[in-house]
């Protein structure tokens, strides 16, 4: 279906990524927001606080991030599209109830504008260090969806996409922004409402009495209902059966957790979104996401100018990870170069998927600023040597001084 017009600010704007994310939420039909201020994500909350009253949305600033996350789950059960936003420390606090959202299968969106960590780290400066936390940060085994925008325009588009995916698969969807993308200001074009595709809640057509809250359909995603409609559902964070009733057995656990994984894994092909360039004849492929994909541009252009055969993959869906794409490429390329503003997170996935078929070169940065494109350029050159070439150590190992 198409976006409802009252939330859509059609036109060309000059927005930063945080504000664009807020507009994306509005266009997607989000009408409940609970959040807690944290740099560099606060502007999302601020814009929503200003915009919601005119479109019938409820904004509430909660007492902390645990409360924010819990509140959006409650609001989703109340029948509304809901989101929150945060950054590293708050993301950690939200993990508890992100787990509840996964277990109760609640559609909702969490935007994480990443900064440097661990702990308070670099509050105002960029990082991409929560990528593994996005995948595994809550306890237990589960599937999750995470998107990574690389511009304000994308913050708008991908936030809509996040809402759509969360409704479709009934899972919290994480919009993994970063401080640079959140705070950079660029032109953002917001289309007409009837050009914006939004996915409505998958409400059960069954009447109360026949409806089972966790009876999965063919694609492994159960239909939902709204509180207050007479269904008198029960839902719990405990392992449960199709009625939503707790069942403390290994069999029930296996059935439920495998489905929670499978609804994402089995649909990964439909969920995946990435940009590829020149993969057919590439000797080296640069795999990047978020702001780093734009920094890598300079290095790739320089390498192309030198006549090197460099391909590119920009991950938009980071989770589920497009392993098949990497696996296929590994058979016909020499190396993957993976720059990211962390000490090597998504590179581990690339390496796993490549399974030794091609070299994987991690280009790291601990955060606080983006890469010097030179480091990515050098990694591309190094990658041309491919497998088998002895890897030159970055510097000679220092000899331990004898005491």
């Amino acid at each position, binding site marked *: 279906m198409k976006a409802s017009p009252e939330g859509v600010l059609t036109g060309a704007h000059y927005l930063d990524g945080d504000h664009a994310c807020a507009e994306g939420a509005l266009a997607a039909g989000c009408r409940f927001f609970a959040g807690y201020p944290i740099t560099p994500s606060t502007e999302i909350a601020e814009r929503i606080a200003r915009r919601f009253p005119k479109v019938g949305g409820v904004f509430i600033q909660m007492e902390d991030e645990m409360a924010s996350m819990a509140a959006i789950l409650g609001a989703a*059960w109340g029948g509304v599209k809901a989101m929150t936003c945060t950054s590293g420390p708050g993301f950690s606090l939200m993990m508890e109830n992100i787990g509840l959202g996964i277990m109760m299968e609640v559609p909702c969106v969490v935007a994480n504008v990443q900064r440097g960590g661990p702990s308070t780290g670099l509050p105002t400066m960029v990082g991409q260090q929560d990528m593994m936390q996005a995948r595994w940060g809550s306890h237990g085994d589960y599937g999750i969806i995470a998107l990574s925008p690389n511009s304000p325009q994308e913050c708008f588009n991908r936030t809509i996409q996040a809402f759509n995916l969360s409704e479709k698969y009934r899972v919290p969807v994480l919009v993994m922004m970063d401080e640079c993308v959140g705070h950079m200001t660029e032109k953002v074009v917001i289309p007409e409402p009837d050009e914006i595709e939004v996915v*409505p809640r998958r409400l059960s057509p069954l009447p109360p009495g026949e409806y089972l809250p966790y009876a999965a359909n063919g694609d492994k995603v159960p239909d939902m209902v709204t509180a207050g409609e007479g269904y008198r559902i029960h839902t719990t964070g405990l392992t449960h059966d199709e009625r939503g009733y707790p069942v403390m057995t290994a069999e029930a656990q296996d059935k439920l957790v495998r489905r929670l994984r499978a609804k994402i894994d089995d649909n990964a092909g439909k969920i995946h979104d990435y940009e590829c360039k020149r993969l057919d004849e590439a000797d080296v492929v640069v795999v990047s996401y978020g702001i780093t994909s734009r920094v890598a541009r300079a290095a790739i252009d320089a390498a192309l100018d030198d006549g090197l055969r460099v391909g590119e993959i920009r991950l938009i869906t980071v989770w589920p990870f497009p392993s098949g794409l990497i696996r296929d490429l590994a058979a016909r390329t020499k190396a993957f170069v993976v720059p990211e503003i962390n000490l090597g997170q998504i590179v581990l996935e690339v390496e796993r998927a490549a399974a030794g078929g091609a070299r994987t070169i991690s280009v790291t940065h601990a955060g606080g600023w983006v890469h010097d494109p030179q480091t990515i350029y050098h990694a591309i050159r190094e990658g041309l040597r491919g497998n088998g070439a002895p890897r030159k150590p970055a510097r000679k190992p220092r000899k331990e001084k004898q005491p």
Partner: protein
Amino acid sequence: MEPFLRMDRFPHIWCPGCGIGTVVTCFADALKKGAFDLDRVAVVSGIGCSGRVAGYIKLDSFHTTHGRPIPFATGLHLSNRKLKVVVISGDGDLIAIGGNHFIHAARRNVDLTVICINNFNYAMTGGQVGPGTPVSALSTTTPFGNFEHPFNLPALAASSGAVYVARWTSLHVRRLTNSILEALTKPGFTFVEVIAPCPTLYTRRNKLGTSIEVLGSYRDNCEIRHGADPSTVDITFGGKIVIGKFVDVAGKPTFLESLDAAMQRALGKEYGLGKDYYMRSAGQRALVDREARHD
């Protein structure tokens, strides 16, 4: 009781003599007395023995994470104004790990009824000291007697802004039922503390006798003092328990009333509320249709 309970989930997990079942009965009776539309009442619980209440009540019921039922309920209520949202959980859940949420929901005067079953310990995990455990009481983590000052729950609720504060015990079923009904009917953050025995892990360990004996001690030890200053109703080990309705404030606007008033003042007709935008925007034709059928 049957329309109120999920009979297909019985037998329940609670021990014989546990006070939680009595609170469930009183809650159901209050709903019946108040002739509430049960399709429009939701119960939210956290974790613990009392947290299991949501699982047995045949309403829209949500068994959430430890300490978080109040913010979950806040979201549920704010997104769906037609719902009457009730939080039923334990002292550890609501006052220790959830303490921050408790005071802030009271401060905002969110229209929720919170029923806290206080059995003076963490029962589900085996009887550890809790935020309401009286000084000198034994628990598995205070093997030599508790030496921490406990929270006085009514004082905490009242000082945080609750508009209705009462305390009863699981012995006082008639008064408790009426009190829950009053709380449910009153707009704003309403709070009922219920002192209830946990024979398995608290009263036996503390040599307070069987559940029946404990209820007897409630009869002997409780003093009904309506309107008592909440700061004077501390509970001491073996001491008198002051019960009654302590706070009943009239006219304090709820969170949503304050929100609506502030926005109408600031934005006038531009305030988008009442247009049910959120339902249409969420792309939920089906929901709107069903709502129409329901009314």
